[in-house]
């Protein structure tokens, strides 16, 4: 199917791509063990001092809790609303289902910063000034498109007659949904949740216009920190987040396989 040369080129690029993608992550992990406040690579030694300083970063804990709350809540709400919408769209009994799907996914491709300023003006105009609620509502638009996109893609490959078949064979409706549909959609659900969590947790452009001095999300706190006094504390924090994600990926790989998850990532 492919000439040998083409295959070699593909492999070289694949491995190059993997190394290139890992490069900044390796730098972050290495810098987190730096014994000095400046990032001198290669390191002259190893130290855990920056890990001890994470919790003492100015305003770190409130920002972490705020980002976690917003990310978990907006992901949970988006998973419910987005999955319901995806089911209705995928079954195709709705007029204009395709256009509706495009509408739900479109915020993903819209500039976050533009959405941020639009929401700032809109919330001001309608007098919606509670920062926490404003952030949550705004992040719904960040997370919902990920869920809608992944679930519509996953459901479009799901054969709804399987549910009917299970029912014909004596399963209750709820039972057949649980035993046929839920396992088939598990990879999509997992990846939708994972992407949505990360998208909200790492969102800067939408949040920057909605936060105030007292409530800053973690990315905003981090960028401020980099601009003011960069030291390896941030690298240590990122290393911990990376380690957590690696564990999540390993579990996902065991549960459903990264390959199946990547297949639903379109």
């Amino acid at each position, binding site marked *: 199917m492919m000439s040998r040369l083409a295959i070699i080129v593909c492999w070289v690029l694949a491995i190059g791509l993997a190394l290139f993608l890992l490069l900044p*992550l390796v730098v972050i992990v290495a810098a987190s063990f730096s014994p000095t406040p400046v990032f001198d690579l290669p390191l002259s030694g190893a130290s855990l001092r920056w890990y001890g300083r994470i919790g003492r970063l100015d305003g770190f804990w409130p920002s972490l809790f705020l980002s976690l709350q917003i990310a978990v809540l907006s992901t949970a709400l988006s998973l419910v609303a987005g999955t319901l919408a995806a089911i209705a769209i995928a079954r*195709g009994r709705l007029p204009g289902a395709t256009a509706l799907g495009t509408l739900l996914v479109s915020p993903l491709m819209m*500039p*976050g910063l533009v959405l941020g300023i639009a929401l700032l003006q*809109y919330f001001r105009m309608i007098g919606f000034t509670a920062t926490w609620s404003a952030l949550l509502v705004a992040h719904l638009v960040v997370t919902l498109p990920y869920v809608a996109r992944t679930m519509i893609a996953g459901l479009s490959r799901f054969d709804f007659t399987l549910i009917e078949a299970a029912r014909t064979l004596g399963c209750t409706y709820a039972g057949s949904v649980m035993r046929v549909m839920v396992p088939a959609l598990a990879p999509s659900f997992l990846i939708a949740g994972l992407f949505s969590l990360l998208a909200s947790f790492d969102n800067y452009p939408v949040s*920057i216009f909605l936060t105030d001095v007292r409530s800053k999300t973690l990315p905003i706190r981090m960028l401020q920190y*980099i601009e003011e006094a960069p030291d390896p504390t941030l690298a240590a924090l990122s290393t911990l987040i990376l380690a957590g994600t*690696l564990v999540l990926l390993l579990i996902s790989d065991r549960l459903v396989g990264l*390959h199946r998850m990547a297949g639903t990532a379109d």
Partner: protein
Amino acid sequence: MTDAVLSAPIVKPAPDRERLAAFGFVAPSLLIIALVFVLPLALLLGVSVLDPKGGVTSAHYVRLLGTPYYLGVIWNSLRLGLLTTLIAFLVSYPAAFALARARGPLRSILLATLFLPLAASVIVKAFAWTILLRSDGLINAVLIAVGIIEDPIRMIFTQTALIVGAVNIFLPFMALPIYAVVAQLDGRYAEAAATLGASPLVVFFRVILPLTLPGIIAGVALVFSLSVSAYVVPTLLVGEKYPTLATTIAKAYLLAREPGFGAAAGVVLLAIAVIVVALSATLSREPK
């Protein structure tokens, strides 16, 4: 669509009730999108044509589209989007074929390298690139050690740094959708074409490329719209020297307090994104 036929229930319930239920399912998402996405953007459009006294004006657009400086800003954004998308595609597309052939632990490792970067904050990755590209950074050190250069070259705060960083950060959004279609590619089509006498080039352009087009369109649309509107990456990697629409918008709102002008710049950036989405939607609907 065969889907509609296949998913038709054996006993058909009343169509009105089904349609009503379907609408109830979509309603929450639709409400969110209407209230927190469509309405605010419509308002932004309004703000962009208002003058401080409340009248209608085209001044903000005239300033944006009539000044060479701001035309340069728009071009900077487009250039960043185009270059990032092109490079990301040229690397991802062939790599996806190798990835699709990989099996076992190697496949998991390669896929993890696509997923893992998404977990690191964009801010932290951009910061890592500032460390790598510094004059006394790792890349200069390696280049000097290997003997390619004698003195460190200035890379940070250059356009090269910006493109390298942007490609690095947005690559997974190209590679993942392309991998998804390549992995599903049925090799028998290509074999059949080859059996019928098609040369490898013909097989590629007439069979493989059209079959993988949906993934390419998805990846290109996503990477272009993300990179054309990137804010953190240009801020950290080139700073003031490469003003883009995104940094101009942020400046207008956060520093200059010119919401009308910022809104107009926002509308232009939005228009670029809408064109890309509309284009990709049209392309992916075309019969393959």
